[in-house]
């Protein structure tokens, strides 16, 4: 169509400003869609981390805190659960299974989880998927370790490698359990959950490496060798928490209340789904703020476009007068400028969307590895189509503002061509 050709030619004549405007809009679109992608990606990633577990038990604390340290390896437990309490809970008639969790050590920044071999059968993620072994098998020996996919990849470990566990959870450990090295007995397949970044050992092993320690430091002169420790009683005195599966979901509240009211020691039992909901409520405000900011960035970009069109308007009054004399109606002049706004925002939206997909494609391995966030590269959602359409429409309407001004000017200018 004539008008679109003229609008495009006119824009090409102002390549640099037009390109910058398109760039601004596309960056804002990338931000808008990117925030949404990360938001849904994060939610999905979190929600997919645990499934099939009815209750998580830990020392009395906030449910969020308990969920974060026990499942997501974020933060630390405030207190421990005694082994006796754990056994009491596991023995309750409604409880189908219980898996103890013992945290507090690390290996090159990856958390070490002491647990039982049941963990690999009962832990479910992503709507009931089970953990599978890429190679090897669950720990059989006291000093066997099963490592997550990211641990294996990042540190280059294979089956049979010897590893030393550091005390504490920092990425650099100053104190290590170097007299009791572990052997890699299994490598887990990638799950996209914190399991990928965890080193799993048996509960007894956690006990064994701490047996000659007191108050978080090795006791001098009292070193127990790896062979001697095998003969000792390695029943743990305390664990960090436990995952509990029930025979019937109906019993959930009953068991939860029983644990929360447990007399011998203050404990908390939480439902992972409820705690996650609490998390969403907490971060919801931040998410809304983030979405609002990215929407404002889009508005700013469109305002920049209006400014760009307005500043060129004066030199284009000439153009308007020429078009009027060759029969262009004011409506044509109006649509020419509105088309320009629409074209610029359309180009911005298209480039921004493509740019986002390119960025996602390039950054996904990095984000996955660094933040454990697996972002999906899927088709645009209906809501995203609506947003993008609205931006293009807003561009047309924003283009109308200078267009109306040009219309007035071209009426007032008459045959005068201002220089």
């Amino acid at each position, binding site marked *: 169509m004539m008008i679109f050709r003229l609008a495009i030619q006119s824009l090409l*004549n102002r390549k640099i400003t037009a390109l910058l405007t398109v760039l601004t809009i596309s960056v804002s679109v990338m931000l808008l869609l990117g925030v949404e992608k990360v938001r849904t990606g994060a939610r999905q990633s979190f929600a997919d981390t645990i499934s099939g577990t009815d209750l998580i038990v830990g020392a009395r604390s906030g449910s969020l805190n308990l969920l974060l340290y026990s499942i997501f390896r974020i933060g630390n437990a405030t207190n421990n659960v005694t082994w006796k309490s754990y056994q009491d809970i596991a023995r309750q008639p409604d409880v189908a299974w219980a898996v103890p969790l013992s945290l507090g050590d690390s290996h090159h920044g990856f958390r070490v989880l002491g647990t039982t071999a049941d963990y690999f059968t009962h832990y479910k993620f992503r709507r009931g998927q089970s953990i599978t072994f890429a190679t090897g098998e669950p720990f059989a020996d006291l000093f066997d370790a099963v490592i997550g996919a990211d641990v294996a990849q990042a540190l280059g470990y294979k089956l049979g490698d010897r590893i030393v566990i550091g005390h504490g959870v920092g990425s650099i450990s100053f104190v290590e359990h170097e007299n009791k090295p572990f052997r890699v007995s299994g490598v887990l397949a990638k799950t996209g959950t914190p399991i990928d970044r965890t080193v799993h050992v048996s509960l007894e092993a956690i006990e064994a490496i701490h047996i000659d320690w007191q108050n978080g430091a090795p006791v001098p002169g009292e070193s127990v060798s790896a062979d001697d420790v095998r003969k000792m009683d390695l029943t743990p005195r305390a664990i960090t928490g436990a995952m509990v599966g029930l025979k019937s979901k109906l019993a959930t509240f009953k068991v939860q209340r029983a644990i929360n009211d447990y007399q011998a020691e203050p404990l908390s039992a939480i439902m992972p789904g409820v705690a996650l909901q609490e998390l969403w409520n907490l971060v919801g405000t931040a998410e809304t703020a983030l979405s609002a900011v990215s929407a404002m960035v889009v508005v700013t970009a469109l305002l920049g476009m209006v400014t760009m069109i307005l500043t060129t308007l004066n030199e284009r009054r000439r153009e308007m007068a020429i078009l009027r*004399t060759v029969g262009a109606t004011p409506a044509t002049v109006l649509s020419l400028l509105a088309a320009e706004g629409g074209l610029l925002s359309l180009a911005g939206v298209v480039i921004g969307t493509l740019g986002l997909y390119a960025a996602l494609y390039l950054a996904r391995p990095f984000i996955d590895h660094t933040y454990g966030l697996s972002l999906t590269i899927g088709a645009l959602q209906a809501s995203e189509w609506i947003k993008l359409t609205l931006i293009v429409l807003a561009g047309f309407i924003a283009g109308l503002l200078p267009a109306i001004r040009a219309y007035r000017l071209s009426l007032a200018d008459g045959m*005068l061509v201002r220089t």
Partner: protein
Amino acid sequence: MTDLAIAPVETRGQGHPRNDAVSFAGVVYTWPGASPFTIRISEFSLARGEKLLMLGPSGSGKSTFLSLLAGILTPDSGRIDVLGHDLAKLSRAARDRFRVEYFGIIFQMFNLLPYASLIDNVLLPVRFSKSRRDRALTEGSLHDVAFRLLAALGLETNVIASATTASLSVGQQQRVAAARALIGAPQIIVADEPTSALDRNAEKGFLELLFAQSAAAGASVIMVSHDEELAHYFDRVVRLEDIAVATRDTPR
């Protein structure tokens, strides 16, 4: 008010409106604004095929006169007929169509869209007017017609084919503007000091080629200028101050 009462009678008594390309009667137009400027033209006519030079110093209302003539401005009162049509009876959209149908317009300078090619600039009117397109098409393809017209107006072939609008001299730009005004044979060519930026030689060449082409198309030419030396190129010379009264009202 008196103008309005007398003018139509005068026009009917004196003239032969059917043969006129343009006639003004009792036209009053006031520019809005803080210091209104009013122009009154009691009577004016342009015959078909006539070449008319309208002289007037700058600021005397020449551009306003041309805007009224081309239907870009509508008079507050009075009547303007163009080729037998009362402009006031046309809607604004119809006037826009009417303008491109019957007028070819050349400005003093900056006639061209800087981003469009020479040929595209020349072809602008035929994009908006079907009848001008049809008339142009009787002589060949649109591109060829535009090309021939540009060549007839003295532009070299290689310039037409390859030059960008921005690289043209002012004289060359005016020739492109003239080709645009002439394409599709509109009946009236309106020119607003088209040669003011040209030297005498270029001016002579430009006007001769313009008149040759307008004569070939049978078009009337009305040109406004402040330059009396152009008079000998034209059939008739009218001084704006003889037909129009311009008053600059003092602000209240």
